[in-house]
């Protein structure tokens, strides 16, 4: 396979595996583990096999366009540094899978764990392999999200939830900073491509945007790598299952920040700001982490703070601005990953086999689990920097860098001294870990009797510890070449000469190392017992500085602040919102108007005054004002007034050369009015009993006055604006083109219809989608409709009719109701075919004469509606099966397919086609594909409006059913009472 394919396969496989794992049943522990292990091994093999290519011929790059206009591509770029990190991610990942299989209990939903785990591996590989800055940030945030899921895996545990939330808050916030930082870098360089960025170090460092970009990028890196003061999330993330802690919080995720700093070291480092921010954070983290680790009683807590401290060490190295320090940093990344992962696994075994991780309760485990104890001791010795183990080599390099880069400022002694001190602390807590857990008297009252774990659970630790020893003994044969090529990938020509030998002769670093070892042992002998009985719980000197408490306070403050702000600026009440909206619109219009000179009267063109038109509008205005006045208590008359206003606007359209609009408006008017009438029935009766306090009355009057002013101003503004525009000469816009081309290009004489179904057909497609969605929404809302109890009574008229029937001989109750509207019923039944014919006529002539799909659809709905009104829903549905939802779907499909038809001829979507066809008798008829599109519109409009009307009309059936159910229940209650 080609190298590109191998890289792509390795990157995609974990995500595929994750998708498969989530589909497994919850009990499929073995299947999930085999799946995860297989994925890890295949990906590992893919990456491993590329070593010769990568170290010899340079990076393997595979790219596809993602957002080409923004310069964002998906680029997988495997160079030697990425190779090293990918091997760590996959190698340790494979071991963790094996370990997790035996660690997790059968009762846990293990496939879910492996699903998250594989997604995490994929995200991590995504970061490491990213060849594009934006892509890197996307995967970066993905690791934050997945790690949230992994930390909170045992979601019934409150500390797991809190830990997950804190980790997500801190690392995702850092990720957002990183995104902005990356965009700034992209702006400086002019490209988001990693290769381009790595080649423009000077441009970045000399840019005025350098400091903001640096601070933002480091905010991302330092939060992810748990650097002081953002380190607080890491100890709390220990609520995750131990395999996850071993993987995320020692080997991989926390190393993402380190990776980022190494990756961008060539372009971002070398300045004062870098030195102080990165070096300062690293130094603080190194000391705070080591100091806090000493005082932990929980094994995992100790390892968590120790991880923080080692991450600080690596960060400090990167801050030192020396190529040799970068070598040491990369080397220590590998070493720390191996010994820390094995220590976490050992701690997990101890927890698993004894039931506790409290070092004060553990003791003398060496007798019960000699094998595990030996492994843990070797790993801890590597952590402490004991010679012949890998930790010693990188620590030696660190100490020598600390001496060489102390600088010439007054603090030049501080760096070597603090480095030695931190090393001594490391020795102290490593020693405490081993001494407390494995030595001393035999343990008593542990939750389980300790014993060695199953064979398979130890294999991952053995592999890691063997790696520690192999690197420690023969570094040049094991890690040497890999480290060399990784360093070369970062530093290029600046790669220094260095020697991985175990013995460099008697020199200052050796003395510091020995001093730290002896110091650590002495400190443990002096204070070990007192640390165990530390009454204050937290680390000495630092117990008052509780980061978690500060974080919680900050979060509470944030939420409270948001509430206060919401109280000031927001309201749940609609009226103030609308008032503000109208006032804002008024202000905006006024501002725009005054800015360009408010000049309403521009004596230009005027149409001749017609008294009939004025009279018509007098009626219209009266209707509108009448509606406004009556709507509160007289809903029926208000509805009629609104209908009158609609009629006037329809006539205006007709008068002013818009027959299409007039037809559509009047049809819409009919349907809307009927709908409002159907709705009236469910509204409350006039409730005179609502008492209004006297204090409210004055306020109410004032409020109405304000509303009246707003309404008047809006009306006046619209009138003025309309007048100002109408009296100005028309601008020669795009309209002329449409009028000229309607016939030659689309074969239609009705320009408005041609616009809708041909020139602007895509807009119309959107509109009918909206219509369909609204229809379905209305249907869905009404399915769960629960009428107010006071609307359930039978209408007064029906009650009277029934009373009349009951009082007369020979009449059944309900007979009069059934006979009501007999004449209109007959008329509408006869009218039905004619209205359908009218609708078809409107539809067919639409392309050339006023009409079209919208109007035809609504006319068709009117035909159905009349039947419902006159004959009742039950009568209609016995005779006609209307399936409005099917109509909506069919209309959508017809319209969409009519548009897609043009693809067959290689034209863009919705390109219309027309020709003439001469059927017998009818003469020459234009046939346009737009007609098919218009058919879709018509069918959909019928479906949507019929759906709304029928759904509303059906509510009265529901009322009957509810009343029937009530009557049945009452009868049942009566029947139950009788025997008693």
């Amino acid at each position, binding site marked *: 396979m080609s190298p590109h394919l191998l890289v792509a396969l390795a990157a995609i496989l974990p995500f595929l595996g994750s998708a498969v794992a989530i589909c497994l049943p919850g009990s499929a522990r073995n299947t999930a583990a085999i799946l995860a292990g297989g994925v890890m091994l295949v990906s590992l093999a893919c990456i491993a096999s590329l070593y010769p290519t990568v170290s010899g011929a340079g990076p393997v790059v595979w790219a596809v366009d993602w957002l080409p206009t923004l310069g964002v591509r998906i680029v997988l770029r495997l160079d030697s540094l990425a190779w090293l990190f990918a091997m760590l991610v996959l190698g340790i990942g494979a071991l963790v899978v094996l370990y997790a299989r035996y660690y997790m209990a059968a009762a846990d939903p293990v496939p879910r764990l492996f699903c998250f785990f594989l997604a995490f591996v994929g995200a991590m590989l995504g970061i490491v392999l990213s060849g594009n800055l934006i892509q890197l940030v996307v995967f970066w945030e993905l690791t934050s999200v997945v790690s949230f899921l992994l930390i909170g895996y045992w979601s019934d545990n409150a500390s797991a939830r809190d830990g997950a939330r804190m980790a997500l808050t801190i690392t995702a916030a850092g990720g957002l900073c990183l995104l902005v930082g990356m965009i700034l870098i992209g702006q400086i360089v002019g490209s988001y491509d990693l290769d381009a960025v790595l080649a423009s170090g000077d441009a970045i460092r000399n840019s005025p945007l350098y400091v903001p970009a640096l601070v933002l990028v480091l905010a991302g890196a330092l939060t992810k790598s748990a650097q002081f003061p953002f380190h607080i999330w890491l100890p709390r993330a220990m609520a995750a299952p131990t395999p996850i802690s071993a993987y995320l919080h020692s080997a991989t995720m926390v190393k993402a920040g380190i990776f980022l700093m190494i990756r961008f070291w060539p372009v971002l480092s070398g300045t004062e700001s870098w030195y102080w921010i990165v070096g300062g954070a690293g130094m603080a983290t190194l000391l705070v982490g080591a100091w806090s680790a000493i005082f932990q009683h929980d094994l995992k807590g100790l390892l968590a703070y120790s991880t923080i401290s080692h991450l600080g060490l690596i960060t400090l190295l990167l801050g030192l601005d020396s190529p040799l320090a970068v070598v040491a940093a990369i080397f220590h990344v590998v070493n720390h990953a191996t010994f820390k992962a094995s220590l976490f696994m050992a701690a997990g075994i101890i927890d698993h086999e004894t039931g506790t991780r409290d070092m004060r309760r553990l003791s003398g485990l060496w007798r019960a689990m000699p094998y595990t104890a030996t492994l843990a001791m070797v790993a801890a010795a590597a952590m402490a920097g004991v010679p012949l183990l890998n930790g010693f080599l990188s620590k030696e390099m660190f100490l020598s860098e600390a001496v060489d880069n102390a600088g010439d400022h007054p603090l030049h002694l501080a760096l070597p001294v603090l480095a030695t001190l931190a090393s001594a602390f490391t020795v102290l807590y490593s020693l405490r870990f081993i001494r407390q857990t494995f030595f001393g008297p035999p343990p008593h009252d542990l939750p389980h009797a300790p014993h060695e774990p199953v064979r398979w659970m130890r294999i991952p630790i053995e592999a890691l510890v063997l790696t520690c020893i192999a690197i420690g003994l023969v570094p040049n044969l094991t890690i040497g070449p890999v480290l060399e090529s990784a360093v070369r990938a970062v530093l290029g020509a600046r790669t220094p000469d260095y020697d991985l030998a175990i013995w460099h002769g008697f020199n200052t670093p050796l003395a510091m190392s020995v001093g730290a070892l002896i110091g650590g042992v002495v400190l443990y002998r002096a204070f070990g017992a007192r640390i165990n009985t530390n009454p204050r719980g937290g680390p000495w000197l630092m117990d008052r500085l509780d980061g978690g408490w500060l974080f919680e306070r900050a979060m509470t403050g944030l939420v409270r602040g948001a509430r206060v702000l919401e109280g000031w600026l927001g309201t749940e009440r609609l009226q103030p919102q609308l008032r503000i909206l109208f006032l804002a619109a008024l202000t905006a219009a006024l501002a725009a108007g005054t800015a360009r000179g408010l000049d309403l009267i521009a004596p230009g063109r005027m*149409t001749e005054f017609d008294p009939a038109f004025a009279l018509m509008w007098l009626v219209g205005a009266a209707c509108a004002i009448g509606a*406004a006045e009556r709507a509160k208590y007289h809903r029926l008359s208000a509805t009629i007034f609104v209908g009158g206003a609609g009629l006037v606007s329809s006539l205006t359209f007709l008068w002013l050369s818009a027959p299409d609009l007039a037809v559509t408006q009047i049809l819409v008017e009919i349907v809307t009015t009927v709908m409002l009438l159907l709705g*009236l029935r469910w509204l409350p009766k006039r409730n005179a009993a609502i008492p209004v306090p006297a204090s409210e009355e004055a306020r109410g009057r004032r409020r109405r006055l304000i509303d009246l002013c707003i309404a008047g101003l809006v009306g006046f503004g619209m009138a003025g604006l309309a007048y100002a525009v109408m009296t100005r000469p028309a601008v020669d816009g795009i309209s002329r083109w449409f009028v000229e081309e*309607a016939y030659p290009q689309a074969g239609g004489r009705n320009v408005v219809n041609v616009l809708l179904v041909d020139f602007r057909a895509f807009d119309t497609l959107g509109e009918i989608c909206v219509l369909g969605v*609204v229809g379905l929404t209305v249907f869905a809302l009404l399915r769960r*409709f629960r009428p107010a109890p006071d609307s359930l009574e039978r209408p007064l008229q029906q009650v009277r009719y029934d009373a009349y029937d009951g009082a007369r001989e020979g009449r059944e109750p309900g007979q009069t109701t059934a006979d009501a509207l007999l004449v209109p019923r007959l008329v509408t039944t006869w009218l039905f075919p004619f209205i359908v014919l009218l609708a078809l006529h409107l539809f067919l002539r639409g392309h050339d004469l006023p009409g079209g799909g919208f109007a035809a659809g609504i006319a068709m709905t009117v035909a159905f509606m009349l039947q419902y009104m006159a004959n009742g829903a039950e009568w209609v549905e016995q005779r006609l099966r209307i399936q409005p939802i099917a109509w909506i779907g069919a209309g959508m499909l017809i319209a969409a397919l009519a548009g897609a038809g043009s693809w067959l001829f290689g034209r863009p979507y919705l390109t219309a086609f027309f020709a003439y066809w001469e059927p017998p008798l009818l003469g020459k008829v234009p046939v346009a594909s737009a007609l098919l599109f218009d058919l879709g519109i018509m069918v959909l409009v019928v479906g949507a409006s019929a759906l709304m009307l029928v759904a509303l009309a059906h509510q009265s059936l529901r009322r009957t059913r509810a009343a029937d159910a009530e009557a049945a229940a009452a009868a049942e209650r009566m029947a139950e009472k009788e025997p008693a």
Partner: protein
Amino acid sequence: MELVLSAGIGVFAASGVWLMLRPRTFQVVLGLSLLSYAVNLFIFAMGRLTVGAPPVLGAVPEIVSVDDPVPQALVLTALVISFALTALFLVVLLAARGVTGSDHVDGREPHRVEPHPGNPLP
């Protein structure tokens, strides 16, 4: 004509806005209807007023001076959408009235009301 139509648009808009600021849902629905008439007429008026020249070409499709078809096409879709909107609001108002027992726009009466028989307030 221009004066009459613009005054009419103003009256429609004012009545619509007034109703939309009222506290009862049915008033708001009617107000929205009136406001959408006003806005539709307003958009239509942007094409200037022409009497007796609809944008429908004759049997021999020669280029004649006709009314601006673009605002008309815009208003035609707006008509149908505002119909859908009115329907949606009507149904939301009915559903809200069923759920909350009140036809106030906020779903509850503004000041404390004695429970009315058949009108159980939460």
